[in-house]
């Protein structure tokens, strides 16, 4: 924990992005059409309307419609469809 805190402090002092230093998920949106989730720890649920992914910050839920899992890599997910909502934690 001490090490984590040190990492976070050092990172902010040096202006290094947090996702590089820690296993924090990085989420990139392209309009409401595409979402990239980096640093995930596993796919929990996938339906056409809802995708749930495990991350170091807990559950990440993406909801919308017509979801397609375009790419699934060890730490990266690319999702296409009509995005409506992204939230951390259970509903």
């Amino acid at each position, binding site marked *: 924990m001490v090490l984590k805190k040190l990492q976070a402090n050092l990172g902010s002092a040096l202006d290094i992005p947090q996702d590089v230093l820690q296993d924090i998920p990085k989420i990139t949106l392209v309009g409401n059409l595409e979402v990239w989730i980096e640093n995930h720890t*596993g*796919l*929990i*649920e*996938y*339906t*056409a309307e809802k995708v749930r992914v495990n991350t170091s910050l807990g559950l990440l839920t993406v909801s919308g419609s017509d*979801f*397609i*899992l*375009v*790419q*699934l*890599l*060890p730490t990266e997910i690319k999702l296409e469809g009509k995005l409506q909502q992204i939230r951390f934690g259970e509903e």
Partner: protein
Amino acid sequence: MLLAGLRERLTGVLVVECRGEGLERLINAAHTRGIVLWDIRRVSPTAALFKMAAVDFRRLRPVIRRRGIKLKIRRKRGLPFVIQRLKKRKGILLGAAAGAAVIYALSSFVWFIDVQGNNKLSAQQVLEAARTLGLERGVWRSQVDPASIARRLKEKLPQTAWVGVSQQGTRVLIKIVEKVERPPAKPGKGDLVAAGTGLVTDVLVLKGTSQVKEGQMVKKGQSLIAAGGLPAAQGFVRARVWYTGTGEAKLKDEGVKPTGNTSTGLRIKIGAKVIILTNKKSPFALYTEEVSAKSLPQWRNIRIPVELITVRYREMTHFQTEMSREEALQAAESKAKEDLERKLPQGAKIVKQQLKPVPVKDHNLVRVDIDVETQEEIAVHRES
């Protein structure tokens, strides 16, 4: 992604339909085994479609075994499947190979022989001559040796100055340059007459009767030595002949002249449409323009209606020159000399030369005449 797509095409891609519960677990399990699934799409709560590499399919079996999931291959794409299909349908492969072989075989014959550059010779004559040298339609292409045929064709056709033979695929082009035939110099006939007006200085009669005496003025066309009963008169008549060359120069002159700066504009003409590529307008205020068009070479009756048009703009500038009287005189004199040079016949020997400025009404103008007297041969045959 383009490259990745290429790799998939080479190794083969399966579109798989999966039915059953627990799709997420299948995905995660496949993932931990290093099996990549992509474009995963739910079609119903219990069914999904996804793509995967064909080589991984076998490895997916143990993953689904205990999960009550059924997999069904919907589509196979990629080179391995194309090859598989072709193996099943050998006819297509055989047909394609046969087609290629036929085209290859046909392309090894000469199908067309064209003759270019013949005017007096007919193409038929040239083709006939080529046939005797073993070049005709349907001949094996490798048997045609353009250099030797060109050489022997030139020997066969004495009317030609140069013959070139070139092969372009199944077409052989015979290019011909015909000899320019000069009419043989005809021996003169009849009387010798004066070629121009002059004062006779010497008369030498070889055949015929002299009609003029030394010191006599003769006019152009006047008979000098009569042939009488002979077919042709022969002899020499020398005479003094006078010529005048004139030249003018302006003291003050103005006009436009090119500065040497140029610019080009390109246009492409397709049919009747012109597309302007560069320099729609001239970058110069004062200019002349020159338009040249290049079109693609015509082959047989096919003409591609595309032309490249180049417009060359030349910048012009106003100029104004002023000369002193002496400079103007010199300029006029050199122009007069040029004028005289044009008028003098070849072989004329200048005996006397006189330069004289001619007064003119225009104060801005200077004029110079050069009078020369020459000694030349003036007897020519009337018919030649």
